[in-house]
């Protein structure tokens, strides 16, 4: 049974404390702006005034763009918490279809988006037009949603993961110790704050009074270097794909910051050994952390430091404090050490279930355990190794993509009769995996060019979901019951 304790969400509450304790310290550096804690408090309270005037009340949901390009995304997020409502962060370039799905599921009181107006949204900029006003006490039940994050479902329809104060505080408590974070941290965050990993690092940095330096991915590698050089970044949280892209685009430029970087953390996918060795060579004094987790576990389940994984290729470290891991060979039989099975997780960071989705919740959650999408084993020393996936998601540089979502978009093309998507090795050597689409031509249709297909998909999908390769086939292989046999397409 959930707790009846009510409190202000932890990060918003701490930001107000830091505004009193360290008013002039930068809280966010983003989009050419530096916002101190005192300025942040004033702007968050003004944004809360705007939301209140637009009818947002405790317990409501608010969908908002959560990009790394403007401080408004963070200010809006905290303003929602200040009112006791739940934030539903979405990508800035979210497709209309995915946005529609999220709106249908969350029934938000308000939608605040950057870029072009959509579906009755207000511009994110309007948050700046607010005036601080008396507001209701900002308290949320300990087990009620603070944020609802949407993640890929294998059926293509988005899954909402409500993260509560219980989950977030457990995450923060564990990571403050693991990372040895302090007020002097200036963390460069190029991973999107609309997703669990980026949002988690933003929460951790603001909670501990550090400075979050938000960068728009690896779009401009110069921005990352500038974040170190000009904004004084002394830590980096990044997907392994981001490190690969940095190497590809800037070679060994990271060496310049060898005396400055305290740590680099990677998560969302295993980092290639060759990149780990290169980082260690360039930054001999920096700690290298690797994490593994899921949105449903409010972030990392395991953690490793440089050296922990020597001789343990494929390991993602040991469980973080407060997390238990269990490997199930079958739904009822636990695996012996060293034997693979589905990875289950239990602990305070594990969320309670999917938002208004009892069927999916029943499938993945039972007795406090969450069944991840991954297959792995634990060795005798307690290190977790990943060996595969339970479901057929494609990991594009840390973004999990459901093949079915791409297939549904492709099937809307009149020249495509049937299609199937699988993961292939990214031809550019950056994102690890990339989608490849196999296509059957509709009778009498003209075969569209690859360029035409990409343009068609751009209207319907985020860019990282667009297949890197297309192949026309006579027939998509299927089982007698009609299920696509993706395993037969892999390697084709």
């Amino acid at each position, binding site marked *: 049974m959930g707790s009846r304790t009510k409190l202000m969400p932890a990060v918003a509450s701490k930001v107000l404390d830091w505004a009193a304790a360290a008013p002039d310290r930068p809280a966010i550096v983003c989009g050419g702006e530096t916002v101190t804690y005192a300025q942040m408090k004033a702007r968050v309270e003004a944004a809360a005034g705007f939301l209140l005037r637009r009818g947002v009340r405790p317990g409501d949901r608010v969908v908002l763009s959560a990009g790394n390009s403007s401080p408004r995304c963070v200010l809006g997020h905290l303003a929602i918490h200040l009112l006791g409502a739940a934030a539903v962060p979405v990508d800035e370039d979210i497709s209309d279809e995915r946005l529609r799905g999220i709106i249908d599921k969350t029934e938000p009181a308000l939608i605040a988006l950057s870029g072009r107006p959509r579906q009755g949204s207000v511009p994110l900029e309007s948050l700046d037009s607010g005036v601080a006003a008396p507001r209701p006490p900002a308290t949320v039940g300990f087990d009620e949603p603070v944020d609802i994050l949407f993640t890929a479902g294998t059926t293509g329809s988005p899954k909402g993961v409500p993260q509560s104060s219980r989950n977030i505080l457990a995450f923060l408590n564990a990571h403050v110790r693991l990372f040895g974070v302090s007020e002097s941290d200036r963390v460069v965050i190029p991973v999107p704050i609309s997703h669990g990993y980026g949002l988690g690092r933003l929460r951790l940095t603001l909670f501990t009074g550090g400075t979050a330096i938000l960068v728009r991915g690896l*779009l*401009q590698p*110069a921005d990352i270097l500038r974040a170190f050089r000009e904004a004084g970044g002394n830590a980096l949280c990044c997907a392994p794909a981001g490190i690969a892209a940095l190497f590809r685009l800037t070679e060994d430029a990271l060496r310049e910051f060898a005396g400055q970087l305290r740590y680099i953390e990677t998560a969302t996918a295993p980092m290639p050994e060759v990149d780990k060795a290169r980082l260690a060579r360039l930054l001999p004094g920096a700690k290298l952390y690797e994490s593994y987790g899921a949105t449903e576990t409010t972030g990392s389940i395991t953690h490793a430091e440089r050296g922990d994984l020597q001789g343990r290729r494929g390991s993602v470290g040991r469980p973080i404090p407060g997390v238990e891991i269990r490997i199930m060979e079958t739904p009822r039989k636990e695996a012996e050490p060293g034997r693979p099975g589905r990875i289950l997780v239990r602990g305070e960071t594990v969320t309670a279930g999917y938002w208004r989705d009892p069927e999916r919740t029943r499938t993945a959650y039972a007795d406090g355990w969450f069944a991840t999408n991954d297959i792995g084993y634990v060795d005798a020393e307690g290190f977790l190794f990943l060996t595969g996936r339970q479901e057929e998601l494609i990991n594009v540089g840390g973004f999990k993509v459901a093949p079915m979502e791409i297939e549904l978009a492709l099937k809307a093309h009149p020249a495509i009769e049937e299609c199937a998507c699988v993961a292939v090795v990214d031809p550019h050597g950056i994102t690890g995996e990339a989608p490849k689409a196999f296509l059957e031509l509709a009778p009498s249709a003209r075969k569209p060019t690859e360029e035409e297909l990409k343009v068609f998909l751009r209207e319907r999908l985020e860019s990282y979901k667009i297949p890197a390769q297309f192949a026309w086939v006579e027939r998509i292989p299927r089982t007698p019951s009609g299920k696509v046999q993706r395993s037969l397409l892999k390697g084709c």
Partner: protein
Amino acid sequence: MTLEELVRKTLAVRPGLPITDDDGPGTIDGWDSVGHIKLVAAIESAYRVKLRPNDVIRIGKLSDIKRILKEKGAASV
């Protein structure tokens, strides 16, 4: 192939949408992190040049790419 055509093809820009020298990641859909890397790889292949880190970090819009390619002596940008 002109640079504009290469950008259109690599980033799947919608036909009919104009592209100017001032366009860049903020104004062209699909010019995101992954698109940026694809574009660098496509430029290197199409113009037979190697973009060094100092070149890559100067790319903020199309005109920057043109200037870099001219400096490298690439023909018909």
